[in-house]
């Protein structure tokens, strides 16, 4: 194991938590998130010597977002979309149930977006990327990012209106406590 491999190992160890969070939002699934991050990191390893002094994060995320879209395309041809929304009955008190309900709604809504819309939302509102950075990572025009963002938000309002209602109140059960 050479210094480059050791450096890559350290990179994997330290970046995996953050990458898994993004991957979970993209896939809505623990195992797929793990597979997505693993696939992206394996591909990154192939070019590590070329990119490690630049911006490896940008590379691995680019692979991850493109891989997710590629998986979705392949899956769409042969299989029904995965619906895996957990039951809520019997969990916790009212605050907790409301918080879980929002999370389930959000997760369900994300899964109903196209992969590109989901990627745009995750990049813009989870990773706080600018429109230009988002366009760069996804390999699309800035105008596409703007239109996809608008469509994604509109679709989410349609799928999960409670998210819109809560924004009017200005208080989310997730943000507001339910501890």
């Amino acid at each position, binding site marked *: 194991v050479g210094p480059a491999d050791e450096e890559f*190992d*350290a990179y*994997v*160890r*330290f*970046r*995996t*938590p953050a990458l*898994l*969070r993004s*991957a*979970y*939002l993209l896939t*809505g*699934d*623990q*195992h*797929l998130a*793990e*597979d997505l*991050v*693993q*696939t992206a*990191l*394996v591909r990154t*390893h192939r070019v590590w010597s070329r990119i490690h002094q630049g911006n490896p994060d940008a590379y691995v995320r680019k692979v991850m977002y493109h891989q997710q879209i590629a*998986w979705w395309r*392949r*899956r769409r041809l*042969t*299989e029904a979309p995965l619906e*895996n929304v*957990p039951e809520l*009955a*019997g*969990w*916790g008190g009212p605050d*907790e149930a409301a918080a*879980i309900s*929002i*999370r389930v709604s*959000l*997760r369900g809504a994300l899964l109903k977006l196209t992969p590109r819309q989901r990627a745009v*939302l*995750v990049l813009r*509102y*989870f990773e*706080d990327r600018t429109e230009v950075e988002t366009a760069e990572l996804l390999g699309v025009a800035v105008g596409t990012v703007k239109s996809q963002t608008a469509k994604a*938000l509109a679709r*989410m*309002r349609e799928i999960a209106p409670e*998210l*819109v209602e*809560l*924004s009017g109140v200005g208080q*989310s059960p*997730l*943000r507001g406590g*339910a*501890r």
Partner: protein
Amino acid sequence: MTELLRDNLRLLSEDVQQVDLADRVRVGSRRAARRRTAFAAAAVIAIVGMAMTVAFALPTSWRVPPADPSPSLITVPPPTPAGAYVFATDPPPDTSLDGVALTVPAWPGADADQTCGGEIVLHGGSYNFPTGAYRQLRLVKAVPHGPRSVAALFQCPLAEPGRRFQVVDYERDAATYRVHGQVLVSRPGGVEAMFDLDVAGAEIRVEVGDWAGSLTANEASHFSVHQWRAYAWNGGAFTQVGGPTTFAPNPNEYALSVAASPLVFGPPRNATRTGTVTLTLRNTGSGLAAPADVTVSVGTYTAFVAAQSTACPGGSWASPAPGIQRCPVGRLAAGASIELSLVFTVATTLSALSTLDDEGSVSIGEDGSPRIGLGDTGNANRRATFTITLA
């Protein structure tokens, strides 16, 4: 809506269970390199073999021989409702020691790349190490005692579980602080977490917990067995002078594991081969497990025949991605085990066999529902590999 979306995306993202992918990435990289090397050779063989393959490729039947009708399910614990834990981020760090040069002693046995010991100056109650962008130290609480002393509880959130907390006692001399002694240092399998700190007379009291497997202290607090323990200076070091010295069994703990038989594809029949892999899922812990999924990955060359496999105890088999089969197994009671069998088919054409991998994998994990228990303190047994061979 976007601020709400931003907050909720962040909180939803914390539902993901953190796992160490380093080994899997290492193995995957080696395998990918082997495949690239083998690809050129395989291309040459494929051209020679193509003529021989034509005879086997026509006509093709994808039916699988009848499987053993007797169910191999051993036990299926019924789903039980339970309280869910909603992840909470930790409160802001204590800023009372901001701007002060401090020495934080090393955590014994900690990974040097992740640990937070060293010379630091806190800003906003935390310190980001310049040589490792992924290392951060937080001051959870500082309690002054006596005219010149302060006890400080630190958290190193991204270090290994069990090596994230310590309480250090400092003595102030003019504007400098020097380490008087390490009061308590977390260690895997012992005191893994520390949540609060107090001083009473000569005693420094620490609220401790037995579990720190999450990234936030709040979650560790939720799932830990809590105790207050007291420590005092004996002239040479801090030693425990009060409170319990061991933890009671943690009622939140469960331990999921999975094992798999080899997958052996039998002789060709109607241009296909079939093979069965048997999975054994267990909860060897003392508590009821969270709802779990089992996921089998065999490669994209196989065709999965759900009708020939053991019924999925928590629903039905599904394929969320090419080459991956998934079954929800519900919640395994303490000591429960489940045995599942899956039948796969593979074409006998050269193009199919040339992509045959020599190894598959299976994993069991929470199904993504909100967390209801602390789960495994180590998840080494949650994943297993099995060989794939042709008879």
